[in-house]
């Protein structure tokens, strides 16, 4: 993607005092009707969710950062800010290099289109050229092992197939900074092993990796550093074994049980 060469140890991402607030409506769907109604009653209709609160973080080239935390901890939100999708509410994020252009879930945005079309459109939206996508497509399709299903509408995909395609896109386009958000451990055992190997392979390059996963075994296995987020706050950061240990204790489960967790 980019020709710049990064050396191990260079700063890839710097997150400073990052805060992010979502504004949502109390209703599931904001409508003019409900707004007019609540105006009459003078009730408040917005709810504020503080998804990230004063998060400090550095990611260096040549390293793998693991991100753990319960559901709703703000992991995906942090990834979205680093990818430039969500502007921060407070603080600052500085990114040196090209971030994986697609967060895995951007693939498959249109369920009625085929896997192939989704990959192409997602890539174009992210700023890749037709040429770049074409050059990578065969590799993506091959890695995902979807066979003919690549030309079937994505609404016919199982969640495993979906995740395979998403993961394949994320790792094939070879960005400087690769983010894998929970796409790693979906899929069957065989694919899981294959994707783990792929991650390990990418790790050897001068690239920065950020892995969000609930599979604590994988995290301790691959990462150089782990951060633990909870309710938008950075709880702990450091050596993978220590952080994962603390996190597993927090979850009130033994470490071994958590490590074997696959989701």
């Amino acid at each position, binding site marked *: 993607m980019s020709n710049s060469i990064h050396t191990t140890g260079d700063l890839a991402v710097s997150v400073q005092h990052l805060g992010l607030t979502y504004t949502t409506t109390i209703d599931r769907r*904001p409508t003019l009707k409900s707004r007019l109604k609540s105006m009459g009653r003078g009730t408040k209709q917005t709810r504020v969710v503080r998804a990230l609160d004063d998060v400090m973080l550095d990611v260096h080239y040549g390293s793998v950062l693991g991100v753990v935390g319960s559901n709703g901890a703000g992991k995906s939100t942090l990834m979205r800010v680093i990818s430039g*999708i969500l*502007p*921060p509410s407070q603080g600052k*994020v500085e990114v040196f290099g090209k971030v994986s252009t697609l967060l895995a879930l*951007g693939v498959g*945005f249109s369920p009625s289109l085929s896997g192939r079309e989704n990959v192409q459109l997602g890539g174009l939206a992210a700023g890749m050229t037709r040429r770049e996508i074409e050059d990578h497509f065969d590799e993506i399709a091959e890695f995902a092992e979807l066979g003919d299903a690549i030309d079937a509408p994505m609404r016919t995909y199982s969640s495993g197939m979906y995740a395979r395609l998403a993961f394949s896109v994320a790792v094939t386009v070879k960005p400087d900074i690769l983010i894998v958000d929970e796409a790693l451990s979906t899929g069957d055992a065989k694919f899981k092993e294959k994707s783990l190997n792929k991650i390990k392979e990418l790790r050897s390059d001068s690239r920065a990796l950020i892995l969000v996963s609930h599979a604590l075994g994988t995290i301790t296995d691959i990462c150089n550093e782990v951060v633990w987020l909870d309710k938008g706050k950075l709880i702990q950061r450091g050596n993978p074994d220590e952080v994962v240990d603390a996190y597993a204790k927090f979850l009130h489960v033994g470490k071994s049980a958590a490590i074997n967790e696959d989701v």
Partner: protein
Amino acid sequence: MASEVYEPFRKGLPPLRKYWRTLWNRRAFIAEYSRSELHEQHFDSVFGQVWLILNPLLLSGVYFVLIVIIGGHSDTTRYGHLTACLFLFYLVANTLQGGVKSVTAGQRLILNTAFPRIMLPISATVVAIFKFIPTLLIFAILRTVLGLPVGWQMLWAVPIILITVIFSLGAAMLISCINVYFRDIANFLPYFTRTLLYLSPILWEASAIKPQLRKIELVNPLFSILDSWSRAVVHAQQPHGSALVIAAAWALGIFLLGTYFFLSREREFAVRV
């Protein structure tokens, strides 16, 4: 080394030059997305094209019969006017229809990819333009069959279509943005377009309007557009200069308003959709 800095954004417009550059780099997305949208709605098949033309043609037939029944002025020119104006009206209506949900339907893409969100309503507009082109050809045939006058003044069609597209795009940006905050706007839209249809010089001719109602000309953006359109392509006459100016002013005004509204809000879409 080049770095990207993300900070809380200031209210108002994003840096326009940079925005334009990222948008231009992604023009292939707009082409590809519109194409797949047309494909999905089957408008790239023969049957889809036939339906596209048949629908307004049937509608103009029905309205024509209606005009005959209520005893209005009815001849071949009138039928030509009705059809030509319906075709152009459908360009606007299809843009609004496709545009209103363009942002909310692109939720997945918006949440997971960084790109100029304006590409979504632009794609909806491109789709509507592609639906409009075959109806232009049909009208060319129809006006020959009806024996309508021919003249160089018909070339005014080109700037009028341009004005219509700019107006529609602006309106599409505006309502797609409003639909993020009020999701029921999409439900109101059919009533709105229906009203616009009746208040525009389509079923009736602009010249036939009572002087007391002349004000519609100023408040209905489509009035001047359709009046000029009918003069150019049906009567092969020069459109009124004042009508052209009003039409262009409306189009530019709505376009600027829509762009401003959309661009100053779009960074918020990801935390709203």
